[in-house]
Each structure stands twice: as structure tokens, then as C-alpha cells.
């Protein structure tokens, strides 16, 4: 087939998507707009049980009564919700046939990030075939999980295979009434991840490798639900260091975590969504609601996030420390460059006795970006002898970057102990010159200083990612000086 013929075919296929809804019910894309019919179609395409459709409809009805929130420090262009298409299949026609067809700059970034060779093709959207051995990796993985009794599947599959679990736990940590984006997500969520760890099981592997290979493309409105039954443990890693583009600008996911007695969930996120060009155009909006409910006594949920992408990041992974002696942790690195904005932080809600929370937040802002930490630590009347330690540090690079901190403390008993430390520092020209005089080039110097600044958080990441995360920070700081 000639190049010209290829081009013509592609153009024809493109046209098909443009006109949206074709006559057959299984075809690809719904036209833009949100209304009750759209929701019914989504639910029926997924063959969902009645309870789920009803939940979606109630959420939608509630969402319609709400106004988009405007209390953040963020500067957001208004979003036209009627111009978004709420259901689409992944596009096939324009996929590169091999790495040779992929933008060399993108490949260079994969190189800098140290992404394993066999994953680069997948990440670039090249159609994967068995040659890459990814099929056998996945198979071994699935076998091991099945042996342990761990359920790890897409949300849609879980609705089909384990509807009782979905019915029991969905929306119990983030109800659709929680906030504007949670309501929208509940109405139109496309897919996501479901994990259930049975009693006494320590999940035999980090649920990350699998994810990296297979979930390179994510949907706009993802829904994730992870349940760790009594005495169980799981470490889950979402996202990847590779820069991710998407035609969809808004990403409003919801993640719900539940731990029962003595259980632990370790949830790590590495996010490098397209941040927009140097003028701030076209970047992704990452508005996600993440919350963990430490229902069981002595249970633990920890959130670790490395946020380096997106035009706007707006999220507060939080913990409800319900069970006595339960623990919540939040470790975060939020990096903003150029015109990026981040308003992120956490809420630690202490309800049970002797509960503990730890917050380590590292904000790095360069160029003209704005980086805000917002934290709430609340201790209810019954949360006697509870403790919180908060450390929020800001690092500024250049003279135009902004860092803001809004810590909030709300204590309703007299035996709680809270500690709060905050620092603001700058990478000075003198520090850079010192490093350069010792032979270290400017970019590496910034990378080293930032890495040192972030090391307390970096050490919380699963090991394979800690190395990539350092490279990620450095790559995203390119051009930060001058």
C-alpha cells in the first residue's frame, strides 16, 4: 500500500469519528453532550445491573443542581460540559505501526526516563504483538494472583463478576454528593480498576507492573475501588512516568480505598500528563477525588504521589481514620513548571482513638507556575490521643514562581497532639555555580538539588519507580532556569 493510499484511508476513517454515532449500537463514539439518555446508553453498553444505572441517574440529577466550584487558587477556563463526548472507544487508525513512526522527541524522553525498551512501543501507542513478550508477563501475573485469591480486574469486569462487592462498597467512601466532580464521575464513569484482597492475604506482587504495561491509555472519568479485607496488604501503583497525551482535556477520576481490621493499602501515583505548551495551552486538567476509609482498627492507608504533569492539578487524597489505632499517611511531590498550576494536599480526618497521621508535602515551583498546598487535619471529639505530624516544604526556582500554603487545623478534644513544620527555600544561582564548578552541569545540578529536597517522599515509592521518579523530576524541570 502506498503512502498516498494510507493517507486517504486514514482520512476516511477520521471522518467517520467526526460524525459520531452511527446506526449500529456497538460503534465507537457518542456525540458530545450529557443528558439522561447518554447515561442510559453508557450503562446499557456496559450491560450494567439496575442498581448501578439508578445510582448513575441519581448522581446526574444531583450534579445538575450544582455549580462548578471556584474556591481554589486555580485559574481555570470554564469547561463546557455539553461539548465533551462521554463515551468513546480507543482510536485505532492513526496508531503508529512501529517505533520508527513515533515522534523522536517522545522516544528521547523515554530514554531520559529510563523506561524499559519493551514498554516504549506500548506507551507510544504502537499496536502490541506477541513479540514483546508482554502477553506472557501478564499471564504469569494473573496466575499468581489467582492462586492467592486476589481479584484484580477492570471495574466493568467487576460489575459483571462481583456485583455484590460493587453494590456493597461503591460510593461509600466518596458518595456522589461529595463534590461537583464526584457527582459527574458517578454519572458518567467509563471504567477503572477494581481490587479485592481476601482476609489474611498479602498480595504477592506490587499491582504496578501489570498496570504499566496494559493501562497506558486511561479514560476521562475513571472509577477505582480497592478493598483490603481483614489482615491483608496490597501495594498499588497507578500512572507512569512517560508523558501522556490525550485529546480529552478533563480527567475527573474517583478513587475509593477501604481497609478493614489490621489491613493496609499502599497507593502510589506517578502522574505526568501533558502540561500544555509553553503558553499553557492544551494541557490536561487533573481533577480527582481520592479518599481512603480506614474502617478497621489498626488499619493503614498511605498515599504517595508524584505529580509533575497536567496543566492544572486539583486533588486532595485523604484518609478517614475511623478505626482505633488506624494510620493515614500522605507523601507528595508536586512539581510545576512554565504555566502549570497545582492546588493539592490532603485531609486527615481523625475519628477513632489513638489514630495517627503523617503528612509530608514537597512543592517545587519553577518559571511562572503556581503551587498550592492545602491541608486539613481534623480531630473529632472522640479521637482521643490522636497525633498528626505535618511537614510542608516549598522550593522555588527562579523569581516568578509562586508557592502558597493553606494549612487548616480543627481539633475537638484536649488529648490530641499536632506538629507542623514548614519551610520555603530557593535554588540560588550560587548553589548552581558551586555545583557547576565541581563539574556537574546545570540540569544535573538542579536534578540533584531537587532530588535531595524530595528524598523523604521518594523513598516511599516502590523501588523500581524511585529511580524513574528522579529522572522524571529532572526531565520536567528542563529549562526551569532562564
Amino acid at each position, binding site marked *: 500500500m502506498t503512502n498516498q493510499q494510507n493517507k486517504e484511508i486514514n482520512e476516511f476513517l477520521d471522518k467517520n469519528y467526526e460524525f459520531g454515532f452511527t446506526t449500529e449500537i456497538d460503534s465507537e463514539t457518542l456525540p458530545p453532550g450529557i443528558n439522561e439518555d447518554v447515561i442510559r446508553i453508557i450503562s446499557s453498553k456496559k450491560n450494567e445491573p439496575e442498581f448501578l444505572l439508578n445510582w448513575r441517574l441519581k448522581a446526574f440529577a444531583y450534579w445538575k443542581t450544582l455549580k462548578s466550584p471556584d474556591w481554589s487558587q486555580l485559574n481555570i477556563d470554564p469547561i463546557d460540559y455539553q461539548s465533551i463526548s462521554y463515551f468513546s472507544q480507543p482510536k485505532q487508525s492513526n496508531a503508529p505501526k512501529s517505533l520508527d513512526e513515533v515522534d523522536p522527541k517522545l522516544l528521547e524522553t523515554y530514554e531520559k526516563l529510563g523506561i524499559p525498551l519493551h514498554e516504549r512501543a506500548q506507551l507510544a501507542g504502537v499496536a502490541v504483538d506477541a513479540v514483546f513478550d508482554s502477553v506472557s508477563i501478564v499471564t504469569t501475573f494473573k496466575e499468581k494472583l489467582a492462586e492467592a485469591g486476589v481479584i484484580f480486574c477492570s471495574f466493568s469486569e467487576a460489575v459483571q463478576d462481583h456485583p455484590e462487592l460493587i453494590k456493597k462498597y461503591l460510593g461509600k467512601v466518596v458518595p456522589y454528593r461529595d463534590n461537583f466532580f464526584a457527582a459527574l464521575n458517578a454519572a458518567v464513569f467509563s471504567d477503572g480498576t477494581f481490587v479485592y484482597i481476601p482476609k489474611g492475604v498479602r498480595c504477592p506482587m506490587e499491582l504496578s507492573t501489570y498496570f504499566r504495561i496494559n493501562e497506558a491509555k486511561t479514560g476521562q472519568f475513571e472509577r477505582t475501588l480497592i478493598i483490603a479485607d481483614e489482615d491483608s496488604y496490597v501495594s498499588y501503583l497507578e500512572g507512569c512516568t512517560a508523558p501522556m497525551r490525550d485529546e480529552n482535556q478533563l480527567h475527573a477520576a474517583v478513587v475509593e480505598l477501604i481497609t478493614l481490621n489490621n489491613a493496609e493499602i499502599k497507593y502510589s501515583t506517578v502522574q505526568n500528563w501533558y502540561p500544555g505548551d509553553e503558553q499553557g495551552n492544551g494541557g490536561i486538567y487533573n481533577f480527582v477525588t481520592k479518599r481512603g476509609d480506614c474502617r478497621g482498627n489498626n488499619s493503614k492507608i498511605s498515599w504517595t504521589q508524584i505529580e509533575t504533569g497536567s496543566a492544572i492539578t486539583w486533588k486532595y487524597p485523604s484518609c478517614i481514620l475511623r478505626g482505633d489505632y488506624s494510620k493515614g499517611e500522605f507523601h507528595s511531590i508536586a512539581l510545576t513548571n512554565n504555566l502549570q498550576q497545582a492546588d493539592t494536599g490532603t485531609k486527615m480526618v481523625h475519628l477513632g482513638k489513638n489514630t495517627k497521621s503523617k503528612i509530608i508535602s514537597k512543592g517545587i515551583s519553577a518559571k511562572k507556575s503556581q503551587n498550592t498546598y492545602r491541608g486539613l487535619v481534623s480531630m473529632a471529639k472522640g479521637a482521643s490521643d490522636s497525633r498528626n505530624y505535618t511537614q510542608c516544604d516549598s522550593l522555588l526556582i527562579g523569581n516568578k514562581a509562586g508557592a502558597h500554603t493553606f494549612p487548616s487545623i480543627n481539633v475537638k478534644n484536649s488529648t490530641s497532639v499536632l506538629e507542623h513544620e514548614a519551610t520555603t527555600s530557593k535554588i540560588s544561582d*550560587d548553589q548552581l*555555580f*558551586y*555545583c*557547576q564548578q*565541581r*563539574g556537574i552541569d546545570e540540569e544535573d545540578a538542579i536534578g540533584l*538539588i531537587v532530588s*535531595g529536597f524530595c528524598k523523604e517522599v521518594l523513598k516511599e515509592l516502590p523501588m523500581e519507580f524511585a529511580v524513574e521518579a528522579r529522572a522524571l523530576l529532572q526531565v520536567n524541570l528542563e529549562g526551569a532556569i532562564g
Partner: protein
Amino acid sequence: MSTDNKIILQINDLSVSTDGSQILNGLNLTVRKGETHAIMGPNGSGKSTLAKTVAGHPDYLITSGKIKFLNKDLSLMSVNERSNLGLFLGFQYPIEIPGLSNTAFLKAAINAQRKFFDLSDIPAKEFLIELKSKADQLNLDQSFLSRGVNEGFSGGEKKRNEIMQMLMLKPKLSILDETDSGLDIDSMKIVAQGVNSSRSKESSTIIITHYERLLNYLVPDYVHVFSDGKIIKTGDLELANELEKKGYEWLTQEK
């Protein structure tokens, strides 16, 4: 002019300005391999400016003249390239870099140099053994290795850290900018001993100082006196002794 392979640093008619003011005025200096040169002179005479200019500090602008390091035109080299080739500046006021450990910092510096010469990274064990031995030599407590670069260091510790870094990097030319200022006698002896231990026929040192006492330990081949951005007299250790007795005015007035 023939290329003299023994010349490490050749400065011809160098004029440098910073912040709108001309500091160096037609400076000439030749440093050969194996030599130790001392530079003395009143404050503002351009000693530190020379050090920073050779190192490539962006605030200093060469308005005329040339500097050649190992027969290469310095103006064509970036700051870190000059370092990789073997140039070391012992800072007058070493800066603190909290969060970046002394160990990680030095390792990155050594590996950057090795990479420049297409060598692989230094093996971790070899690096740590040498690092600990140099720390001992400079009387720096082992605990400092995990602390941030110069973080919370006393003035003396900072200066000793400069020399420790010098010993680890093994430069061809070290420029020590008032390394002895603020040091007590014991620290000064340790520093002097450290510098002496690294002397060789292949490397050279430029010591910028106000005080003769360090020079009694480091015995320079040449002592240059700066004034108004150029060298007004060159001698040896005896010159430094005279300055100690008579002060700079003896020379600057003579001009």
C-alpha cells in the same frame, strides 16, 4: 609564541568588569605545571575576581585579553567543562546546599568528570573508602558525609570541606580563594598539610591570601602582589614576609 606544554594557565592582558565596574586591568600571569603561586593584595584589588573569572562565573565579563587553560581558550568552555578538565576553585564563602548530601554531591562530581573522559562511574566501594580516608585526613567527622553540603558547618569545617573535595577531584589547577581566612592554627595546619599532600609535578596551585603564615607551610614558588587589577610586584616568600611587616602601602605607594 610556541606552545609550551608546561604551561597550565596563561593569562594575557586580561581586563574584567562586573556590575559596570572595571576590576582587572591588563593582567598578565603564567602558571606552569608543578608550580605554586601566591596572590596577595589589598581588598578590592581583583584577587577574587581573577579566581571567579577563571572559574567562569557569569557575573564577570572579560572585556579584553585571553585566558588559556591547558592550552585551550577558556572562553569557549562552560563552567562545568573547565572543572572536568581539571580546574578547581576553593570558594571564599562556600555555599550550603541543604538536602543534597556531601556524599551524593561528590559522587556526582566525580562521575561527571569520569563521563567527560568516557569512563564508567566510580565503583561505590572504591568511592566510599577514598571518601572516608580523605574525611579523616581533613579531620571531618564521618557524620558529615550524610549531611547536606556545608549544611550547618562552621567556617573552619567549610574550608576543610573545600580541601577535601579538592583531594577527591584531583585537579590540575587549584585556585584557593582565601582558604585560610577564619581558620585557627590547627585547622590551618590541617588544610596546609592537605594541600601539600596533593602537590605533584603535574598539578599547580594558586593561593589567594592576606596572611603570610599559610605560605610558610605551603612555600610558594612565586608571590604576586595585586593592586588596582594588575600585578605590581612578583617575588618569593621573602616578599610575603616583607608585606607582613610593612603592609601593602609600601608597595602601592611606590607605584
